[in-house]
């Protein structure tokens, strides 16, 4: 109750509307008083004397429709007038603030307002200008960072490629010395790992830099394509993959979605239990009226629930995953991509039983619902 009262007291728009209404009422009443002060009502209540003029009217109808309308019109007129004069700058400010919230910083409030509103408008314009400058600086800085990542990755890979290539040549010329061959193989393996790390790092940094080109994606087709890319790994692990025939169509950047499914399915293949071939199931369903869900479940090594947050952090690798090849950037890249698509990822997992990764896309980005 007090909260509502406080709201009414502090609501500036409401106050000015009431003020306008009172102003209208006061002016109307003053008009009536002025009128009444110049009239004399006869004892029979029917004759009005305006100055020296006598007029016979029925004053019993003073509070009937037309006089009441005569009161109401000025009330509404002045209420509207005050609203226009006082509240319109507030409305304008609200509108421009909404623009800023929606990400448009090319806003400015017209400078014709005087007084406090003028000062507020000036401060608002300065704030928007400052935000825009900060945003531009951030954009420029991000671009520099992207270029830096690309240059570092490229320039580090070049000498690495040389190390690897000459190691291969040396290995061939090691004249059957097994120790030398093994040591050179170590150099090649380490160089390969470094190359993978640089590629993943570059991919991770590129996710937020690259312009998204969204289109309708048939996820059944995409997942099938990804599994064919992973054919060698599937063969090696003896995996059994079940893809539901009618996964939902989503609207997303196809290149980035391919990275998402590639990472999740490759993880499900790589993190399998010893001597137990992976069984992976990919399904899709309408989660609620607002969301659609795609799940990727496996029978792999799994992990403890308390590690759920860790797995999406860059370079974080869980204890039971140390023996599996990887850089610790895959799932953080997946999360970054899904964040950009306003989609969510969640996971439930049980050690030595398996994991279920759930991708939830907002319905606004969905084409056909799953059948």
């Amino acid at each position: 109750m007090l909260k509502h009262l406080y709201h009414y007291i502090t609501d500036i728009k409401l106050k000015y509307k009431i003020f306008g209404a009172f102003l209208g009422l006061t002016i109307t009443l003053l008009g009536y008083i002025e009128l009444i002060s110049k009239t004399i009502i006869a004892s029979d209540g029917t004759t009005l004397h305006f100055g020296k003029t006598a007029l016979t009217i029925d004053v019993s109808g003073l509070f009937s429709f037309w006089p009441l309308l005569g009161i109401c019109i000025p009330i509404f007129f002045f209420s509207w007038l005050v609203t226009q004069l006082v509240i319109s700058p507030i409305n304008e400010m609200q509108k421009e603030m909404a623009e800023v919230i929606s990400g448009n910083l090319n806003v400015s409030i017209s400078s014709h307002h005087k007084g406090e509103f003028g000062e507020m408008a000036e401060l608002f314009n300065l704030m928007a200008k400052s935000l825009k400058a900060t945003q531009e600086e951030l954009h420029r800085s991000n671009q520099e960072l992207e270029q830096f990542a690309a240059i570092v990755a490229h320039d580090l890979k070049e000498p690495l490629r040389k190390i690897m290539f000459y190691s291969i040549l040396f290995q061939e010329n090691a004249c059957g010395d097994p120790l030398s061959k093994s040591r050179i193989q170590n150099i090649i393996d380490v160089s390969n790992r470094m190359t993978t790390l640089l590629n993943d790092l570059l991919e991770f940094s590129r996710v937020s830099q690259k312009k998204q080109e969204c289109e309708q994606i048939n996820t059944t087709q995409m997942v099938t394509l990804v599994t064919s890319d992973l054919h060698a790994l599937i063969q090696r692990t003896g995996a059994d993959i079940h893809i539901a025939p009618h996964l939902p169509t989503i609207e997303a950047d196809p290149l980035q979605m391919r990275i998402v499914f590639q990472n999740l399915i490759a993880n499900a293949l790589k993190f399998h239990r010893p001597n137990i071939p992976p069984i992976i199931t990919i399904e899709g369903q309408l989660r609620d009226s607002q969301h659609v869900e795609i799940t990727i479940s496996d029978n792999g090594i799994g992990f403890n629930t308390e590690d759920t947050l860790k797995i999406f952090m860059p370079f974080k690798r869980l204890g039971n995953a140390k023996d599996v090849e990887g850089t610790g950037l895959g799932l953080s890249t997946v999360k970054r991509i899904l964040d950009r698509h306003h989609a969510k990822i969640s996971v439930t997992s049980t050690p030595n039983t398996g994991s279920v990764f759930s991708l939830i896309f907002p319905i606004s980005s969905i084409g056909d619902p799953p059948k």
Partner: protein
Amino acid sequence: MTHSENPVPQAHKLSILLIDDDALMSEMVRYALKSDITNVVLHVYTDIDIQLKNINPSLILVDLNLTSSDGEATLQKIREIFPHHAVIPISGIAPLRIQEWEALYRLEPFLSKDNLLQNLHAIVQKKRT
């Protein structure tokens, strides 16, 4: 710099043009094709040169990170000289716009230098057939 060595008549050899200012790349290409090198004529240039007009390669490998020009400028110049030849863009990392360029300049799929040793031989064999 042009290399040709072997008993197979020049006319039957597959002509490959490599444009890359990284000296290692010509070594890597030769190594990748070592089992078939006698059937290949490898032309190596470090830049887009006017003399390229005298070559009629079956396959062009072009680095998108030449010191002298950026990726798109390189592809434009290549297409001016070789409007209809098969061009494979190569680089240490795939440029952000590679898919767009592949369509725009009618390129063969991008080949990462990381995978050149494993894949080049198969690509050349496919080209030969």
